[in-house]
């Protein structure tokens, strides 16, 4: 990485870097490397997703039609919970060991660093959940087209969960009780539209309507979240460090 010295810094000293892209790359690379070093934890999160999905049929008569009707909703709620479960760690470990201070003081824009962390979070939680969904959809007797729409919805919707979740995770940093249940209270209401459009997409297909409207709305939501949440999360991180 070539960096040029910004004005005001004498040549005798190291140069400060700039550029949102470099910051984003740093955060993605580091968080992915850390995630790879603790793969077991990622596996546990996916298992949680699998188990939650498998619990619902056990709580009722596993009747084919009923399960096919409930399936999309159950898979989505489980995805919401899996995302929520992994969120507290997004900033908490960096906060506890002092790295978050260095991240906030980095010459790279904090918003870009946070966007990178969120991307890494999605790659390690949301993406596996979306890829695992077809397998679990078999337990709910969903047909091929429904499964395709379910996965498309999860691919569009789970990044929104990570982005919104980052704001909640930053707001609850360092609070009593680890912030886990408080985080759920803050974030789950905001997840409602994602749940509705995501599960609604599959319902529409099953009802013979196209899924385009729901998926487009999820896409629009993703665009909005991409633009807004890194700034909100950056503000929240600075507030937590003050």
């Amino acid at each position, binding site marked *: 990485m070539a960096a040029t010295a910004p004005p005001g810094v004498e040549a005798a000293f190291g140069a400060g870097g700039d550029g949102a892209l470099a910051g984003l790359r740093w955060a993605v690379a580091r968080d992915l490397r850390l995630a790879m070093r603790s793969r077991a934890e990622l596996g546990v999160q996916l298992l949680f997703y699998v188990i939650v999905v498998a619990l619902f049929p056990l709580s009722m008569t596993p009747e084919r039609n009923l399960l096919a009707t409930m399936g999309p909703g159950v898979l989505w709620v489980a995805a919401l919970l899996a995302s929520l479960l992994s969120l507290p760690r997004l900033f908490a470990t960096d906060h506890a060991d002092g790295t978050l201070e260095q991240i906030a003081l980095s010459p790279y824009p904090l918003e870009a660093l946070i966007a990178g962390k969120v991307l890494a979070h999605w790659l390690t939680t949301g993406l596996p959940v979306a890829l695992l969904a077809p397998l679990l959809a078999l337990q709910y007797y969903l047909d091929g087209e429904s499964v395709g729409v379910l996965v498309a919805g999860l691919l569009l919707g789970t990044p929104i969960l990570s982005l919104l979740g980052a704001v909640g995770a930053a707001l609850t940093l360092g*609070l009593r*009780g680890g912030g886990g249940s*408080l985080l759920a209270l803050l974030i789950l209401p905001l997840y409602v539209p994602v749940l509705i*459009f995501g599960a609604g997409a599959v319902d529409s297909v099953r009802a013979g309507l196209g899924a385009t409207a729901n998926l487009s709305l999820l896409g629009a939501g993703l665009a909005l979240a991409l633009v807004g*949440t890194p700034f909100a999360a950056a503000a*929240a991180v600075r507030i*937590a460090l003050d």
Partner: protein
Amino acid sequence: MALNWTRYASPASFHPLAGKLIPWFGWGAAVLAAIGLWLGFAVAPTDFQQGEVYRIIFIHVPSAWMSMFLYVVMAFWGALLLAFNTRLSGMMAQAIAPTGALMTFLALWTGALWGRPTWGTYWAWDARMTSELILLFLYLGIIALRQAIGEARRADRACAVLSLVGVVNIPIIYYSVQWWNTLHQGASVKPTGSSMEATMLWGMLVMSFAFWFYAIAVVLSRVRSIMLERERSAAWVAALPEVGSAR
């Protein structure tokens, strides 16, 4: 002459101003509520479809309006706090949250009581009721976040960020719930009698103003307490006549 409104942004000068305003809004709320209830319960005619039970509308609709309005006002104070870092803004936002939550709860409660005789059920997954429920969760989240943080300055700013994220999301949530509702329930429950009697409308308007005045009075008196609590070591608090005479 330009009014120097920033003067009132300092707690020391806002505290006495709020003290003077509270009786006006408090009594205003009482008088308006008396007129509104009289209009609603004595003057307005019985609804030809729902009978007397519709009269809960005079509480239900104003509280639902206030619940949404207060959230926007709270987010507005939050935005002011983040933009100008004025102490008063955070205190105002803190003072509004409980009243907003109360209004949301009232709207849900009266909605359930109204739903039982008209729809035959306390709870329906109606778009309005569902969004109102989510709004209650948003309020409770803000109150809980403040409780968990404890330190006033950080709590103010964190709640401001959360309320701004919430205010962007409220229309999206409302729209999504409506979308979901029309997809799943072909025949949605709608308020009957689109042609509303003039007296009913007047009753509802007057009651809305009563709720509004009540909210202002309560928020101002709560913000006075918050000011005293937060600035207890400040010179202006020690100089207050009621503090001085207590010594």
